[in-house]
């Protein structure tokens, strides 16, 4: 079952097309990474999926509720961490949470227990009565995350949750996201932090006005770069390039990281053939490693073309 399903979702602002024909499905209980450059339309997409703004065309179903027809129900079932924390500086952390809990129709007792639960989880309980204006950026971000979860939403939209945080605070937030996933919540994560997306996301969508590609990080790597093997040879690998390229099962070869990166359709079967051919030609083969591409490679490859 999908937590989020969109079909042809489109949003225009006057003549400007912000989101074009977005069709995606986010399975229940998964972490979906929504990646894209600045101005790609990610925030507009999130706003549409949270029933904050309407689409120009297309349909969407969020938490089983139809966008446009059940907007209030959608807002009740999703939590959102906006780009900026948007907290009331003059109020304490607890006052901020209690106010939002009331807007989500939580009873006073439930509001307090939820606030305590999340403030403790995020290490803010001791500062609960302090005015938010005196909080660090990391503390504000954590408090905003707590706010987005007060009403136990099935789907949580997190827009750049670790942006600008120090490594320790980022780690706390990432661990917290993993805990949320373990609880079975669906998380829609907008981020520029690609290692973070690689670490946290079950599925990734690369987006620039329209969805360029989606799948698991591994699928994206395989689709874009294929599978392959990195050969480590004694001495300069360059002279062996043509030898490798001449093999009939090799799809491509290039110099990379002091070795030869060889693209193969089926490395499990073709690696022994490759090794035999090189040794037979006189090469001193030291190591054979699976060819890995970072998510950053995938992302840059996808967004580089206009």
């Amino acid at each position, binding site marked *: 079952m999908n937590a989020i399903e969109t079909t042809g979702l489109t949003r225009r602002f006057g003549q400007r097309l912000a989101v074009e024909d977005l069709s995606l499905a986010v399975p229940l209980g998964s972490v979906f990474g929504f990646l894209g450059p600045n101005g790609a339309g990610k925030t507009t997409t999130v706003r549409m999926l949270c029933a904050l703004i309407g689409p120009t065309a297309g349909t969407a179903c969020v938490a089983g509720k139809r966008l446009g027809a059940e907007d209030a129900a959608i807002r009740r079932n999703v939590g959102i961490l906006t780009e900026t924390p948007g907290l009331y500086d003059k*109020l304490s952390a607890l006052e901020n949470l209690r106010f939002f809990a*009331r*807007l*989500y129709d939580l009873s006073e007792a439930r509001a307090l227990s939820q606030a305590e639960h999340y403030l403790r989880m995020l290490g803010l309980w001791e500062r609960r009565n302090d005015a938010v204006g005196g909080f660090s950026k990391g503390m504000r971000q954590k408090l905003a995350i707590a706010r987005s979860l007060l009403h136990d939403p099935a789907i949580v939209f997190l827009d750049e949750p670790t942006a600008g945080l120090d490594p320790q605070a980022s780690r706390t937030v990432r661990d917290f996201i993993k805990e949320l996933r373990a609880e079975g919540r669906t998380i829609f994560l907008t981020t520029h932090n690609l290692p973070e997306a690689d670490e946290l996301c079950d599925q990734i969508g690369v987006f620039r006005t329209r969805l360029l590609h989606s799948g698991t990080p591994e699928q994206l790597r395989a689709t874009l770069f294929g599978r392959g093997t990195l050969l480590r040879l004694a001495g300069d690998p360059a002279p062996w390039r043509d030898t490798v390229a001449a093999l009939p099962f090799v799809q491509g070869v290039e110099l990379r990281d002091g070795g030869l990166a060889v693209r193969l359709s089926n490395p499990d079967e073709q690696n022994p053939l490759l090794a035999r051919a090189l040794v037979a030609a006189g090469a001193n083969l030291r190591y054979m490693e699976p060819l890995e591409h970072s998510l950053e490679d995938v992302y840059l490859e996808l967004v580089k073309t206009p």
Partner: protein
Amino acid sequence: MHHIRALLEKEWLELRHERGLIISTLAFPLLLTIIGIVAVVALGRVPDQDTAQLGAVQVDPALAGLPLEQLGQVVVGRQFGLLFLMMPLFIPSVLASYSIVGEKTRRTLEPLLATPLATWELLVAKSLAALLPAVLLTWLAGAIYVGGVALAALSPQVFGLIITPAWLLLLLLCGPLLALLAVALAVLISSRVNDPRSAQQIAGVVVLPILALFFSQLLGLVQVNIAFVLAMALLLLLLNVLTLVLATRLFQREAILTRWT
């Protein structure tokens, strides 16, 4: 209703921490009331020879034959009475500008709109948060003024000529309508500016018609009687309907998010 109540309580909780805003909000009605009472006291002790020549005195037969010091009290008391109409315009424009533009500048509108809160609930809560203190402060200041004039008036006749049924109706009926107008205008202005002070300055022009009324009465061009007050209330009602329709059109969830921020 509980969403509106939650928002109202949040507004007042925030206001509690804004000493500067509280002082600037309270200072105007307090000073105006005190100055008004002091002026009535002063004119009763130091009569002004020119008072009898004023247009306001010439057109009102009820003032004929009053001793000069009593006449002075009536004229100045009535003029200050009209200035009380500036309170329901000034106070909500300060509070509403701070409240609505403040949400914009602090970027708290999006999380707020992401809750199940209905847009009309937000508009009503924001309006009430500015309207209620304005109306209550105006009425409180009016009550203090009535008490002060009762103590300072040289005769019961002077008191009756300053604190007229028309003036009371003006305060009780036109006061809330003026406050509502100020709130609706603040919403309109807030959609276009990003600084509470700019919103207040623009909203400040709404006091100009009250100043016009002040001088018209002083010159004898206008007499504030029951008929005048009812006509003014009707006009305000129409203006309120017009501005509220415009404000409601601007105050839409999508417009707030995409054009206000």
